């Protein structure tokens, strides 16, 4: 009996998504990514290499950041632990094609899948425990404030002008 309960519990645990939006205008205003120490405290050396070799470094900064944030959101809900350990969230297997990017984030021995949308105004990343959940999830991005609570989103991200809601 308890085995079945445990199994259904672990299945439920797997169904998690996290999302993160970066308003690129707001980010440019709030953060100086070229500030001494900034990149070292947030990114691994491999990630810093991706940033420095990109034709548009700030875009890579915020792409990697939103991958980390979206994965962290799932992890902190799963573990109920809050830590500010951005370098431990490691981005891997990043593939960028047109305005879409896919990749993985590992954190404390766990693997998360990410899919990002890169637009002129924002970068949005959706993360999940299993790739199928990314396909299944519905994302709604708005540039106005609305009372979303009754719609029961699983993940909410708000930055600058944007509100991003993710549903399963």
């Amino acid at each position, binding site marked *: 009996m308890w085995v079945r309960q445990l199994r259904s519990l672990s299945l439920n645990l797997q169904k998690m998504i996290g999302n993160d939006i970066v308003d690129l205008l707001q*980010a440019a205003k*709030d*953060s100086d990514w070229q*500030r001494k120490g*900034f990149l070292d*405290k947030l990114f691994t050396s491999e990630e810093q290499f991706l940033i420095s070799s990109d034709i548009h470094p700030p875009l890579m900064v915020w792409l990697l950041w939103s991958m980390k*944030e979206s994965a962290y959101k799932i992890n902190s809900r799963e573990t109920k632990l809050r830590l*500010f*350990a951005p*370098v431990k969230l490691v981005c891997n297997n990043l593939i960028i094609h047109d305005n879409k990017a896919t990749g993985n984030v590992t954190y404390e021995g766990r693997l998360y899948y990410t899919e990002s949308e890169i637009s002129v105004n924002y970068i949005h990343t959706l993360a999940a425990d299993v790739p199928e959940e990314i396909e299944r999830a519905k994302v709604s991005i708005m540039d106005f404030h609305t009372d979303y609570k009754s719609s029961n989103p699983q993940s909410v991200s708000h930055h600058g002008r944007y509100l991003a809601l993710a549903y399963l």
Partner: protein
Amino acid sequence: MATYVEEGNMPDELTEDTDFIKDLKINSANLVDIVLDTEEEFGIEIDNLSMERMLNVGAAIEIIELKLAENDR
């Protein structure tokens, strides 16, 4: 620190329990600026392990005191 707090979110009084993200609504990307500002202001180096728990005012004070004591040694 008020630099990173949006207008209207700065309380009259900070306590040790004041949480940078939950209470002051500081964007998580700006947490690193608080860490860097603290390093510059106090002439200390905050390693990643200390930074992990620098989520509220109390933890920040504790880390600053610890690092200053290490500098004195």
